[in-house]
Protein backbone atom coordinates (compact mmCIF):
# COMPACT_ATOMS: atom_id res chain seq x y z
CA UNK A 1 0.00 0.00 0.00
CA UNK A 2 1.46 3.33 -1.04
CA UNK A 3 0.86 6.56 0.83
CA UNK A 4 -2.60 8.04 0.68
CA UNK A 5 -3.03 11.26 -1.27
CA UNK A 6 -6.27 13.06 -0.63
CA UNK A 7 -5.16 15.89 -2.92
CA UNK A 8 -6.88 13.98 -5.69
CA UNK A 9 -10.22 15.02 -4.22
CA UNK A 10 -9.25 18.66 -4.18
CA UNK A 11 -8.11 18.57 -7.81
CA UNK A 12 -11.28 16.83 -8.94
CA UNK A 13 -13.60 18.89 -6.75
CA UNK A 14 -15.51 20.79 -9.48
CA UNK A 15 -16.19 17.54 -11.31
CA UNK A 16 -17.36 15.78 -8.15
CA UNK A 17 -19.59 18.71 -7.14
CA UNK A 18 -21.23 18.64 -10.55
CA UNK A 19 -21.98 14.97 -9.95
CA UNK A 20 -23.38 15.73 -6.51
CA UNK A 21 -25.61 18.40 -8.04
CA UNK A 22 -27.00 15.83 -10.46
CA UNK A 23 -27.66 13.42 -7.57
CA UNK A 24 -29.63 16.12 -5.73
CA UNK A 25 -31.46 17.09 -8.91
CA UNK A 26 -32.48 13.48 -9.57
CA UNK A 27 -33.62 13.06 -5.96
CA UNK A 28 -35.70 16.25 -6.10
CA UNK A 29 -37.36 15.46 -9.45
CA UNK A 30 -38.05 11.83 -8.54
CA UNK A 31 -39.47 12.86 -5.18
CA UNK A 32 -41.71 15.55 -6.65
CA UNK A 33 -42.98 13.36 -9.47
CA UNK A 34 -43.21 10.33 -7.22
CA UNK A 35 -45.22 12.17 -4.56
CA UNK A 36 -47.75 13.56 -7.07
CA UNK A 37 -48.18 10.27 -8.92
CA UNK A 38 -48.07 8.29 -5.68
CA UNK A 39 -50.87 10.37 -4.15
CA UNK A 40 -53.00 9.71 -7.23
CA UNK A 41 -52.27 5.98 -7.03
CA UNK A 42 -53.10 5.82 -3.34
CA UNK A 43 -56.39 7.70 -3.80
CA UNK A 44 -57.36 5.39 -6.67
CA UNK A 45 -56.37 2.35 -4.69
CA UNK A 46 -58.54 3.37 -1.73
CA UNK A 47 -61.44 4.40 -3.97
CA UNK A 48 -64.61 2.47 -4.64
CA UNK A 49 -63.80 1.82 -8.33
CA UNK A 50 -62.88 -1.83 -8.06
CA UNK A 51 -61.16 -2.28 -11.43
CA UNK A 52 -59.06 0.87 -11.14
CA UNK A 53 -58.14 -0.02 -7.59
CA UNK A 54 -56.88 -3.43 -8.65
CA UNK A 55 -54.87 -1.84 -11.48
CA UNK A 56 -53.26 0.61 -9.06
CA UNK A 57 -52.44 -2.23 -6.65
CA UNK A 58 -50.88 -4.20 -9.52
CA UNK A 59 -48.76 -1.19 -10.50
CA UNK A 60 -47.53 -0.63 -6.94
CA UNK A 61 -46.81 -4.28 -6.14
CA UNK A 62 -45.23 -4.86 -9.54
CA UNK A 63 -42.75 -2.02 -9.22
CA UNK A 64 -42.01 -2.96 -5.62
CA UNK A 65 -41.13 -6.52 -6.59
CA UNK A 66 -38.41 -5.81 -9.15
CA UNK A 67 -34.94 -4.34 -8.65
CA UNK A 68 -34.41 -0.66 -9.43
CA UNK A 69 -31.43 -1.60 -11.61
CA UNK A 70 -33.73 -3.64 -13.83
CA UNK A 71 -36.19 -0.74 -14.01
CA UNK A 72 -33.37 1.58 -15.08
CA UNK A 73 -32.33 -0.88 -17.80
CA UNK A 74 -35.97 -1.29 -18.90
CA UNK A 75 -36.51 2.42 -19.44
CA UNK A 76 -33.06 3.01 -20.91
CA UNK A 77 -34.05 0.46 -23.53
CA UNK A 78 -37.78 1.14 -23.77
CA UNK A 79 -38.11 4.94 -23.85
CA UNK A 80 -36.20 5.48 -27.12
CA UNK A 81 -38.13 2.58 -28.65
CA UNK A 82 -41.50 3.96 -27.55
CA UNK A 83 -40.74 7.51 -28.68
CA UNK A 84 -39.08 6.40 -31.91
CA UNK A 85 -36.09 8.67 -31.35
CA UNK A 86 -33.00 8.58 -29.20
CA UNK A 87 -33.26 10.23 -25.81
CA UNK A 88 -30.57 11.12 -23.33
CA UNK A 89 -29.74 8.76 -20.48
CA UNK A 90 -30.88 11.48 -18.08
CA UNK A 91 -34.37 11.63 -19.58
CA UNK A 92 -34.89 7.88 -19.43
CA UNK A 93 -33.57 7.76 -15.86
CA UNK A 94 -35.88 10.57 -14.73
CA UNK A 95 -38.89 8.69 -16.11
CA UNK A 96 -37.72 5.44 -14.50
CA UNK A 97 -37.19 7.05 -11.10
CA UNK A 98 -40.49 8.95 -11.08
CA UNK A 99 -42.51 5.85 -11.98
CA UNK A 100 -40.53 3.67 -9.54
CA UNK A 101 -40.75 6.10 -6.61
CA UNK A 102 -44.47 6.61 -7.22
CA UNK A 103 -45.02 3.01 -6.15
CA UNK A 104 -43.19 3.57 -2.84
CA UNK A 105 -44.74 6.97 -2.10
CA UNK A 106 -48.14 5.51 -2.90
CA UNK A 107 -47.69 3.01 -0.07
CA UNK A 108 -46.72 5.83 2.30
CA UNK A 109 -49.81 7.81 1.27
CA UNK A 110 -52.02 4.78 1.61
CA UNK A 111 -50.83 4.15 5.18
CA UNK A 112 -51.13 7.88 5.93
CA UNK A 113 -54.68 8.15 4.58
CA UNK A 114 -55.73 5.01 6.41
CA UNK A 115 -54.32 6.41 9.66
CA UNK A 116 -57.11 9.02 9.67
CA UNK A 117 -60.15 7.72 11.53
CA UNK A 118 -63.35 7.24 9.48
CA UNK A 119 -65.15 9.65 11.80
CA UNK A 120 -63.25 12.48 10.13
CA UNK A 121 -64.63 11.54 6.72
CA UNK A 122 -68.13 11.17 8.08
CA UNK A 123 -67.97 14.52 9.91
CA UNK A 124 -66.71 16.27 6.77
CA UNK A 125 -69.47 14.70 4.64
CA UNK A 126 -72.03 15.72 7.27
CA UNK A 127 -70.79 19.31 6.98
CA UNK A 128 -71.53 19.15 3.27
CA UNK A 129 -68.00 18.71 1.89
CA UNK A 130 -67.49 16.56 -1.20
CA UNK A 131 -65.00 13.72 -1.56
CA UNK A 132 -62.11 15.77 -2.92
CA UNK A 133 -62.81 18.68 -0.58
CA UNK A 134 -62.67 16.31 2.37
CA UNK A 135 -59.43 14.83 1.06
CA UNK A 136 -57.80 18.21 0.50
CA UNK A 137 -59.09 20.16 3.49
CA UNK A 138 -59.55 17.57 6.22
CA UNK A 139 -57.76 14.27 5.64
CA UNK A 140 -54.55 15.17 3.80
CA UNK A 141 -53.43 17.93 6.20
CA UNK A 142 -53.64 15.47 9.08
CA UNK A 143 -52.24 12.55 7.12
CA UNK A 144 -49.27 14.61 5.92
CA UNK A 145 -48.28 15.26 9.51
CA UNK A 146 -48.16 11.54 10.20
CA UNK A 147 -46.41 10.80 6.93
CA UNK A 148 -43.71 13.45 6.86
CA UNK A 149 -41.04 11.45 8.76
CA UNK A 150 -41.59 8.44 6.49
CA UNK A 151 -41.43 10.65 3.41
CA UNK A 152 -38.08 12.03 4.53
CA UNK A 153 -36.79 8.52 5.24
CA UNK A 154 -37.89 7.51 1.74
CA UNK A 155 -36.08 10.57 0.33
CA UNK A 156 -32.88 9.41 2.04
CA UNK A 157 -33.31 5.95 0.49
CA UNK A 158 -34.00 7.61 -2.85
CA UNK A 159 -30.88 9.76 -2.59
CA UNK A 160 -28.84 6.60 -2.05
CA UNK A 161 -30.64 4.87 -4.90
CA UNK A 162 -29.73 7.61 -7.37
CA UNK A 163 -26.22 6.12 -7.20
CA UNK A 164 -27.57 3.25 -9.32
CA UNK A 165 -27.51 5.43 -12.44
CA UNK A 166 -23.90 4.25 -12.43
CA UNK A 167 -25.09 1.22 -14.42
CA UNK A 168 -25.86 3.41 -17.44
CA UNK A 169 -22.86 5.72 -16.85
CA UNK A 170 -24.88 8.82 -16.03
CA UNK A 171 -22.55 11.17 -14.15
CA UNK A 172 -24.08 11.52 -10.73
CA UNK A 173 -21.89 11.72 -7.62
CA UNK A 174 -21.25 7.97 -7.51
CA UNK A 175 -20.30 7.71 -11.19
CA UNK A 176 -18.12 10.83 -10.98
CA UNK A 177 -16.32 9.41 -7.96
CA UNK A 178 -15.72 6.16 -9.80
CA UNK A 179 -14.41 8.03 -12.86
CA UNK A 180 -11.99 10.03 -10.71
CA UNK A 181 -10.96 6.92 -8.77
CA UNK A 182 -10.05 4.99 -11.91
CA UNK A 183 -8.60 7.89 -13.90
CA UNK A 184 -6.18 8.96 -11.16
CA UNK A 185 -5.81 5.41 -9.81
CA UNK A 186 -6.84 6.64 -6.36
CA UNK A 187 -9.59 4.18 -5.50
CA UNK A 188 -9.07 4.16 -1.76
CA UNK A 189 -9.10 7.92 -1.24
CA UNK A 190 -11.94 8.64 -3.63
CA UNK A 191 -14.29 5.91 -2.47
CA UNK A 192 -13.65 6.69 1.21
CA UNK A 193 -14.40 10.37 0.69
CA UNK A 194 -17.48 9.52 -1.38
CA UNK A 195 -18.69 7.23 1.40
CA UNK A 196 -18.15 10.02 3.94
CA UNK A 197 -20.12 12.49 1.81
CA UNK A 198 -23.06 10.10 1.42
CA UNK A 199 -22.86 9.22 5.11
CA UNK A 200 -23.02 12.83 6.29
CA UNK A 201 -25.87 13.80 3.95
CA UNK A 202 -27.95 10.71 4.72
CA UNK A 203 -27.29 10.93 8.47
CA UNK A 204 -28.61 14.49 8.49
CA UNK A 205 -31.71 13.32 6.62
CA UNK A 206 -32.24 10.34 8.91
CA UNK A 207 -31.74 12.45 12.04
CA UNK A 208 -34.27 15.06 10.90
CA UNK A 209 -36.79 12.30 10.14
CA UNK A 210 -36.47 10.80 13.62
CA UNK A 211 -36.64 14.25 15.28
CA UNK A 212 -39.84 15.00 13.39
CA UNK A 213 -41.44 11.70 14.31
CA UNK A 214 -40.49 12.22 17.98
CA UNK A 215 -42.05 15.69 18.00
CA UNK A 216 -45.21 14.80 16.09
CA UNK A 217 -46.52 11.80 17.92
CA UNK A 218 -49.91 11.11 16.36
CA UNK A 219 -52.57 12.57 18.62
Amino acid at each position, binding site marked *: *MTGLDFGVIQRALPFLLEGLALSFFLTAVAMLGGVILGLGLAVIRLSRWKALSILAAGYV*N*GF*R*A*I*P*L*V*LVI*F*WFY*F*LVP*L*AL*GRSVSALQSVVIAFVLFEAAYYSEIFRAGLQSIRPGQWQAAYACGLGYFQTLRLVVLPQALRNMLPLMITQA*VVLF*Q*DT*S*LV*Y*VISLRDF*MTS*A*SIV*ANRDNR*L*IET*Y*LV*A*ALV*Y*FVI*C*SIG*AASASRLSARWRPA
Partner: protein
Amino acid sequence: MNYSWNWSILIQPPYLGWLASGLELTLVISISAWILALIAGTLVGVVGTLPHRIPRMLAATYVGMFRNIPLLLQLFLWFFVVPELLPSGWGFWLKRDLPFPELWTSMLALGLFTSARVAVQVGSGITAVSSGQRMAAVASGMSPAQAYRLVLLPQAFRIVLPPLTSDFLTVFKNSALALTIGVFELTAQTRQIESFTFQGFEAFTAATIVYLVIALLVTFFMRTLERRVALPDTMGAAS
Protein backbone atom coordinates in the same frame (compact mmCIF):
# COMPACT_ATOMS: atom_id res chain seq x y z
CA MET B 1 -42.97 1.30 -32.33
CA ASN B 2 -40.66 -0.48 -34.71
CA TYR B 3 -39.54 -3.74 -33.15
CA SER B 4 -39.24 -7.30 -34.39
CA TRP B 5 -40.47 -9.74 -31.80
CA ASN B 6 -38.79 -13.04 -31.16
CA TRP B 7 -39.92 -14.64 -27.94
CA SER B 8 -38.32 -17.96 -28.85
CA ILE B 9 -34.96 -16.36 -28.13
CA LEU B 10 -35.61 -17.06 -24.46
CA ILE B 11 -35.66 -20.81 -24.87
CA GLN B 12 -32.80 -21.03 -27.35
CA PRO B 13 -29.34 -22.12 -26.29
CA PRO B 14 -27.25 -20.52 -24.99
CA TYR B 15 -29.70 -17.87 -23.76
CA LEU B 16 -31.89 -20.16 -21.68
CA GLY B 17 -28.76 -21.43 -19.95
CA TRP B 18 -27.68 -17.85 -19.27
CA LEU B 19 -31.00 -17.09 -17.63
CA ALA B 20 -30.83 -20.26 -15.54
CA SER B 21 -27.29 -19.60 -14.33
CA GLY B 22 -28.24 -16.00 -13.61
CA LEU B 23 -31.18 -17.12 -11.52
CA GLU B 24 -28.97 -19.57 -9.68
CA LEU B 25 -26.46 -16.85 -8.76
CA THR B 26 -29.26 -14.50 -7.71
CA LEU B 27 -30.64 -17.17 -5.39
CA VAL B 28 -27.22 -18.15 -4.00
CA ILE B 29 -26.21 -14.55 -3.27
CA SER B 30 -29.58 -13.57 -1.81
CA ILE B 31 -29.97 -16.57 0.47
CA SER B 32 -26.43 -16.52 1.83
CA ALA B 33 -26.63 -12.74 2.32
CA TRP B 34 -29.91 -13.24 4.16
CA ILE B 35 -28.43 -15.83 6.50
CA LEU B 36 -25.50 -13.53 7.27
CA ALA B 37 -27.91 -10.62 7.75
CA LEU B 38 -30.04 -12.62 10.19
CA ILE B 39 -27.06 -13.65 12.30
CA ALA B 40 -25.27 -10.29 12.33
CA GLY B 41 -28.52 -8.34 12.58
CA THR B 42 -29.78 -10.36 15.54
CA LEU B 43 -26.46 -9.87 17.36
CA VAL B 44 -26.48 -6.13 16.76
CA GLY B 45 -30.17 -5.90 17.59
CA VAL B 46 -29.57 -7.64 20.94
CA VAL B 47 -26.56 -5.44 21.71
CA GLY B 48 -28.73 -2.40 20.97
CA THR B 49 -31.19 -3.35 23.72
CA LEU B 50 -28.66 -4.07 26.46
CA PRO B 51 -29.07 -1.93 29.57
CA HIS B 52 -25.65 -0.24 29.26
CA ARG B 53 -25.05 2.90 27.23
CA ILE B 54 -21.83 1.96 25.46
CA PRO B 55 -23.08 -1.21 23.70
CA ARG B 56 -26.22 0.67 22.70
CA MET B 57 -24.12 3.42 21.14
CA LEU B 58 -21.98 0.86 19.32
CA ALA B 59 -25.06 -0.79 17.86
CA ALA B 60 -26.48 2.57 16.78
CA THR B 61 -23.17 3.43 15.09
CA TYR B 62 -23.18 0.09 13.26
CA VAL B 63 -26.72 0.65 12.01
CA GLY B 64 -25.98 4.23 10.98
CA MET B 65 -22.85 3.25 9.07
CA PHE B 66 -24.52 0.54 7.03
CA ARG B 67 -27.77 2.41 6.45
CA ASN B 68 -26.42 5.77 5.38
CA ILE B 69 -24.00 4.69 2.65
CA PRO B 70 -25.44 3.48 -0.68
CA LEU B 71 -25.19 -0.26 -1.18
CA LEU B 72 -23.37 0.25 -4.49
CA LEU B 73 -20.64 2.23 -2.75
CA GLN B 74 -20.43 -0.35 0.05
CA LEU B 75 -19.86 -3.03 -2.59
CA PHE B 76 -17.04 -0.97 -4.08
CA LEU B 77 -15.54 -0.36 -0.65
CA TRP B 78 -15.45 -4.10 0.13
CA PHE B 79 -14.22 -4.99 -3.34
CA PHE B 80 -11.67 -2.30 -4.12
CA VAL B 81 -10.73 -0.59 -0.86
CA VAL B 82 -10.77 -3.15 1.96
CA PRO B 83 -8.21 -5.54 0.36
CA GLU B 84 -5.80 -2.59 0.10
CA LEU B 85 -6.23 -1.56 3.72
CA LEU B 86 -5.68 -5.06 5.12
CA PRO B 87 -2.19 -6.36 5.98
CA SER B 88 -0.53 -7.07 2.63
CA GLY B 89 -0.57 -10.87 3.06
CA TRP B 90 -4.34 -10.93 3.53
CA GLY B 91 -4.84 -8.47 0.71
CA PHE B 92 -2.80 -10.67 -1.62
CA TRP B 93 -4.81 -13.73 -0.65
CA LEU B 94 -8.08 -11.89 -1.30
CA LYS B 95 -6.95 -10.61 -4.66
CA ARG B 96 -4.97 -13.59 -5.95
CA ASP B 97 -5.94 -16.86 -4.32
CA LEU B 98 -9.57 -16.54 -3.28
CA PRO B 99 -11.73 -18.10 -6.00
CA PHE B 100 -14.77 -16.03 -7.15
CA PRO B 101 -13.85 -12.91 -5.13
CA GLU B 102 -16.73 -10.92 -6.64
CA LEU B 103 -19.22 -13.52 -5.49
CA TRP B 104 -17.95 -13.59 -1.88
CA THR B 105 -17.77 -9.80 -1.82
CA SER B 106 -21.36 -9.38 -2.94
CA MET B 107 -22.62 -11.87 -0.34
CA LEU B 108 -20.67 -10.11 2.42
CA ALA B 109 -21.61 -6.58 1.36
CA LEU B 110 -25.27 -7.37 0.82
CA GLY B 111 -25.43 -9.38 4.04
CA LEU B 112 -23.94 -6.65 6.21
CA PHE B 113 -26.00 -3.94 4.49
CA THR B 114 -29.16 -5.92 5.22
CA SER B 115 -28.05 -6.78 8.77
CA ALA B 116 -28.51 -3.12 9.74
CA ARG B 117 -32.19 -3.32 8.77
CA VAL B 118 -32.57 -6.65 10.56
CA ALA B 119 -30.93 -5.16 13.65
CA VAL B 120 -33.49 -2.36 13.74
CA GLN B 121 -36.37 -4.81 13.38
CA VAL B 122 -35.06 -7.25 16.01
CA GLY B 123 -34.33 -4.36 18.37
CA SER B 124 -37.86 -3.01 18.05
CA GLY B 125 -39.22 -6.53 18.49
CA ILE B 126 -37.32 -6.98 21.76
CA THR B 127 -38.54 -3.58 22.96
CA ALA B 128 -42.09 -4.61 22.10
CA VAL B 129 -41.95 -7.55 24.50
CA SER B 130 -43.14 -6.02 27.75
CA SER B 131 -40.35 -5.06 30.16
CA GLY B 132 -42.14 -7.04 32.88
CA GLN B 133 -41.13 -10.23 31.09
CA ARG B 134 -37.46 -9.28 31.20
CA MET B 135 -37.73 -8.55 34.90
CA ALA B 136 -39.68 -11.75 35.52
CA ALA B 137 -37.03 -13.77 33.67
CA VAL B 138 -34.22 -12.24 35.73
CA ALA B 139 -36.23 -12.61 38.92
CA SER B 140 -36.73 -16.30 38.29
CA GLY B 141 -32.96 -16.73 38.21
CA MET B 142 -32.15 -16.59 34.51
CA SER B 143 -28.91 -15.02 33.38
CA PRO B 144 -29.27 -12.14 30.88
CA ALA B 145 -28.20 -14.54 28.09
CA GLN B 146 -30.88 -17.02 29.11
CA ALA B 147 -33.49 -14.26 29.31
CA TYR B 148 -32.71 -13.23 25.75
CA ARG B 149 -32.51 -16.77 24.39
CA LEU B 150 -35.51 -18.28 26.15
CA VAL B 151 -37.89 -15.37 26.71
CA LEU B 152 -37.20 -12.22 24.71
CA LEU B 153 -35.90 -13.37 21.32
CA PRO B 154 -38.48 -16.11 20.62
CA GLN B 155 -41.25 -13.56 21.07
CA ALA B 156 -39.40 -10.74 19.33
CA PHE B 157 -38.91 -12.81 16.17
CA ARG B 158 -42.55 -13.70 16.02
CA ILE B 159 -43.52 -10.04 16.40
CA VAL B 160 -41.21 -8.77 13.66
CA LEU B 161 -41.72 -11.56 11.14
CA PRO B 162 -43.92 -9.46 8.79
CA PRO B 163 -41.41 -6.59 8.41
CA LEU B 164 -38.61 -9.15 8.07
CA THR B 165 -40.48 -10.59 5.09
CA SER B 166 -40.21 -7.32 3.23
CA ASP B 167 -36.50 -7.13 4.10
CA PHE B 168 -36.07 -10.63 2.69
CA LEU B 169 -37.68 -9.51 -0.57
CA THR B 170 -35.41 -6.46 -0.63
CA VAL B 171 -32.37 -8.75 -0.50
CA PHE B 172 -33.44 -10.44 -3.75
CA LYS B 173 -33.85 -7.09 -5.45
CA ASN B 174 -30.61 -5.68 -4.08
CA SER B 175 -28.66 -8.72 -5.25
CA ALA B 176 -28.95 -7.25 -8.76
CA LEU B 177 -26.27 -4.75 -7.74
CA ALA B 178 -23.69 -7.54 -7.77
CA LEU B 179 -23.55 -7.00 -11.54
CA THR B 180 -21.53 -3.82 -10.94
CA ILE B 181 -18.57 -5.86 -9.71
CA GLY B 182 -18.92 -8.49 -12.40
CA VAL B 183 -21.24 -11.16 -11.02
CA PHE B 184 -23.43 -12.48 -13.81
CA GLU B 185 -26.65 -12.77 -11.86
CA LEU B 186 -30.11 -12.58 -13.38
CA THR B 187 -30.22 -8.89 -14.32
CA ALA B 188 -26.70 -8.99 -15.75
CA GLN B 189 -27.56 -12.03 -17.87
CA THR B 190 -30.64 -10.39 -19.34
CA ARG B 191 -28.60 -7.29 -20.08
CA GLN B 192 -26.10 -9.53 -21.84
CA ILE B 193 -28.84 -11.24 -23.84
CA GLU B 194 -30.07 -7.81 -24.86
CA SER B 195 -26.68 -6.72 -26.10
CA PHE B 196 -26.08 -10.02 -27.94
CA THR B 197 -29.45 -10.33 -29.65
CA PHE B 198 -31.03 -6.85 -29.46
CA GLN B 199 -34.12 -8.62 -28.11
CA GLY B 200 -34.21 -6.45 -25.00
CA PHE B 201 -37.96 -6.57 -24.59
CA GLU B 202 -38.05 -10.35 -24.31
CA ALA B 203 -34.97 -10.55 -22.08
CA PHE B 204 -36.12 -7.89 -19.61
CA THR B 205 -39.60 -9.37 -19.56
CA ALA B 206 -38.15 -12.74 -18.58
CA ALA B 207 -36.19 -11.20 -15.71
CA THR B 208 -39.19 -9.17 -14.56
CA ILE B 209 -41.38 -12.25 -14.46
CA VAL B 210 -38.78 -14.24 -12.54
CA TYR B 211 -38.45 -11.47 -9.92
CA LEU B 212 -42.25 -11.24 -9.65
CA VAL B 213 -42.54 -14.99 -9.16
CA ILE B 214 -39.83 -14.95 -6.47
CA ALA B 215 -41.67 -12.12 -4.70
CA LEU B 216 -44.96 -14.03 -4.85
CA LEU B 217 -43.41 -17.27 -3.61
CA VAL B 218 -41.56 -15.60 -0.74
CA THR B 219 -44.65 -13.64 0.27
CA PHE B 220 -46.82 -16.76 0.20
CA PHE B 221 -44.29 -18.81 2.16
CA MET B 222 -43.79 -16.11 4.77
CA ARG B 223 -47.54 -15.47 5.20
CA THR B 224 -48.00 -19.17 5.93
CA LEU B 225 -45.14 -19.05 8.40
CA GLU B 226 -46.50 -15.87 10.01
CA ARG B 227 -49.88 -17.46 10.56
CA ARG B 228 -48.32 -20.52 12.14
CA VAL B 229 -46.06 -18.69 14.57
CA ALA B 230 -48.03 -15.52 15.35
CA LEU B 231 -48.29 -14.79 19.07
CA PRO B 232 -51.82 -15.67 20.20
CA ASP B 233 -52.76 -12.17 21.31
CA THR B 234 -51.51 -10.56 18.08
CA MET B 235 -53.23 -13.04 15.81
CA GLY B 236 -55.82 -10.54 14.60
CA ALA B 237 -53.36 -7.69 14.23
CA ALA B 238 -50.86 -9.67 12.19
CA SER B 239 -53.22 -10.76 9.43
